[in-house]
């Protein structure tokens, strides 16, 4: 994901970045202006210990931030330089300035990917909880294989969203799909409208 934060290019990587993501970062680094910020969270953190060109000299100008919770789940040692610890709430506050005065959903999280494992299930939910902790107007749009987050062991963590009204949970279902355990059913047209109307759309 690429997000504008003021005039600063901000990159939020939750999976191993590919050539397209790295090229976008390199392009941002080549521009005059504030240093681009990169936030690595969830499975992207697996990649830090691999020998890669992530911190090649040409990328030294980036502000490398790592979700400290994701790091601690995988490592007991301190975060190596040039990476620095950061929190999800602070990152979301940075990339999503408060726009509660604006009509339409403020922040829509799009969940269309099935969890790879229990850790991925939690690390998909955590950005949503972080936004909710900031009292943001949060809508979660679950569709396709993303509905697997709402079923099976570990899915009970998602119940918090409804039980404490932390976020509106919309689940895209076709007429012949099994009914999900959680959330309000919506059709594809309503889902498209939510995406269009969102002040900020984050794909998880």
């Amino acid at each position, binding site marked *: 994901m690429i997000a504008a934060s003021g005039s600063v290019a901000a990159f939020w990587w939750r999976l191993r970045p590919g050539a397209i993501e790295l090229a976008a970062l390199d392009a941002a680094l080549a521009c005059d202006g504030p240093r681009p910020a990169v936030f690595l969270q969830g499975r992207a953190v697996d990649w830090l210990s691999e020998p890669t060109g992530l911190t090649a000299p040409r990328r030294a100008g980036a502000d490398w931030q790592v979700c400290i*919770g994701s790091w601690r789940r995988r490592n007991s040692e301190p975060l190596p330089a040039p990476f620095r610890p950061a929190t999800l709430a602070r990152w979301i506050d940075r990339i999503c300035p408060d726009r509660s005065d604006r009509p339409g959903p403020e922040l829509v999280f799009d969940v269309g990917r099935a969890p790879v494992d229990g850790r991925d299930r939690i690390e998909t939910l955590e950005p949503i*909880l972080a936004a909710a902790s900031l009292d943001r107007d949060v809508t979660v749009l679950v569709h396709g294989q993303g509905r697997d987050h709402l079923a099976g062991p570990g899915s009970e963590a998602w119940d918090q969203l409804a039980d404490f009204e*932390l976020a509106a949970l919309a689940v895209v279902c076709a007429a012949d799909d099994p009914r999900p355990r959680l959330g309000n059913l919506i059709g594809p047209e309503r889902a498209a409208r939510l995406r269009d109307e969102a002040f900020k759309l984050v794909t998880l």
Partner: protein
Amino acid sequence: MSAQSDLIVDGKRIALDDDGHLVASSDWSEAVGRALAERAGLRLDDRHWWLIRFVRDHHARYGMPPLMRVVIRAMREQTDQADASSRTLYRMFPEGPIREACRYAGLPRPESCI
């Protein structure tokens, strides 16, 4: 694990991790929670116990500790603290209300960075 970090409660040795959390959550009892707090120089009152029980119940139900805003709302609704706020919670547990409540509730240190 050094023996210095362990806790003795009612003659039983309770193993703690480097962060002072129970190694085995099944070792927890209210006596253990009280002993953990006293070790940190804290005497638990009714409000502390409300929070500790709330965090334990939330963890049992959802598999993770609650958000602060969830605790504040519940505290306003379920206790006589109608004006509860994050300040209220930090006065109870200055080093971090949720993290400290987890410790005295016998739960693991929260992994989340929220």
